């Protein structure tokens, strides 16, 4: 009935060794998971509304967005393909992705190819200094423009 001392010690040693093995394996993953990343800011200004004349679609490739202006309404559509993250290019019919052939209309709705979701639209606000501010952390329903 009683567990012998030797057995007991064997158990403790065994559990200790296996446990520390598992812990050190896990700690490797903790180690290689960065705590902070230094990417581009997700909120940024893209200049005055006048830079985007009515009826234009201007792709800001560095920011991976496309600024769409229709009359006095303005919006920012993502240009990162929802399939595997390539940058979609402007096409006559909207956007086209060079990597696996996804196609989107000018609102970002998928019209062909493997992309699983439409291109997201980002929140856009007019800062007090008159510049347009895009917030890539906040997605809004496609089709909702900011009226200037």
């Amino acid at each position, binding site marked *: 009935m009683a567990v012998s001392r030797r057995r007991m010690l064997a158990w403790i040693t065994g559990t200790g060794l296996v446990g520390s093995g598992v812990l050190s394996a896990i700690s490797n*993953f903790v180690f*290689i*998971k*960065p705590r902070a*990343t*230094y*990417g581009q800011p997700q909120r940024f200004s893209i200049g005055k509304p006048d830079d985007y004349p009515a009826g234009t679609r201007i792709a800001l*490739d*560095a920011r991976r967005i496309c600024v769409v202006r229709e009359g006095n309404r303005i919006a920012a559509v993502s240009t990162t393909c929802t*399939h*595997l*993250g*390539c*940058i979609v*290019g402007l*096409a006559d019919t909207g956007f*086209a*992705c*060079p*990597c*696996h*052939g996804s*196609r989107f209309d000018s609102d970002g709705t998928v019209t062909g*190819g*493997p992309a*699983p979701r439409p291109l997201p639209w980002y929140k856009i606000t007019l800062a007090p200094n008159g510049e347009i501010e895009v917030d890539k952390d906040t997605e809004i329903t496609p089709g909702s423009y900011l009226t200037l």
Partner: protein
Amino acid sequence: MSKETASPSLLTAVKELPGNVWKSLFRNPLPTNDLERSSTSFTNFFLHIHPVKVHKNTLRPSYTLGLGLISFFLFMILVVTGILLMFYYVPSTTQAYDRMLDLRGSVAFGTILRNMHRWSAHGMVAVVVMHLCRVFLTGSYKKPREFNWVLGVVLLLLTLLMSFTGYLLPWDQLAFWAITVGTAIAGYAPIVGKDIQFLLMGGSTVGQEALLRFYVLHVAVLPAVLTLSIAIHFWRIRKDGGLSRPADADPTPPMEMAGSAADPRPSTLDGKKTYGLQGLVRGPLTKVNNIPDNTVFSWPNLFMSELFVFVMTLAVVLVLALLFNAPLEEPVNVMHPPNPAKAPWYFLGLQEMVSYSAFWGGIGVPGIFVGLLLLTPYLDRSPKGVGKWFSRDRLLANTIFLTFLLANVIFVIIGTFFRGPNWAFVTPW
């Protein structure tokens, strides 16, 4: 000085120095008889991985095509050229591409080293796949070689990972967009996908952190794992009784010689050992069962064929490296993927599948494929048809395998020749 007559004089020692150093390095002279031939492989560390004698079937070029050896030699070429390239490479987004140009312009042998590294890598992917086909089509994954087959599949995956982590390093357009797409595919894996993607990139976009990570994986982590797996793979070949061969390749010992039928104490060694290794090496030449066998001494038969394969492999790589330059695309432009953005040929099948569905093409189908490969020896338990190419007994298994293979080849061909800008279907003529 008269005391020194017992030991040879300094002068003699100096005179005999070269000979003595040589003898301390190599314990045996070049062999002239069977005893010495066995000792040669038995006492040399590097040859010791080989058996003293090998089966004649193993040496038939038309059986193995030397594919396993070629993969190994390509790996060695990759290690050597890779280490040399490390002297001039900096894993930094601002320097990596310039370093590539330096290799071309101002480093002696830079171009040829890079070419050799690139073409050996392509070659290794191709040859490892062909080796897998050889092993499958000759039924060599069957008992007792199940685990070595599993290891082999792991080695294939490691080879692909090595090449995938390798092509981020030049930091050209191919590198950047391939890794963007590749890590995004990993992101589609269920549950852990997003974490894996984040760990691989060390951030949320491909940048400096990703480059450093892929570099460490490429030059330290994966080579270490690969080397260890190769070592076990080779060791298992010995332990599994050498390469597979058809059942009729070995003469069966006459019944009265086997003699164990009446033995009341069955030994686990019965039926495995046909001669005493120690007896063979230390002499006298005793065989346990004095039966005819189909083996030949490794020295010189096996070693010479290995040397031949090595020289041929090196020669082909050298010629390719002299004739064709490894491509280097435009420097990374994070704003514009090239159009069409194509992966290297061996990943184009995957890219083609991914263009139908990211999950199924990138995770689902490859996952099922690898799973089936790993399970093959545990699903196909029939011991028949080992050691023969396209054996009739293995018609079903071979057909399934070839179908998968052909599908993949077709996808690669479509991806290579029939896809144009925006991944639209084009005809190459």
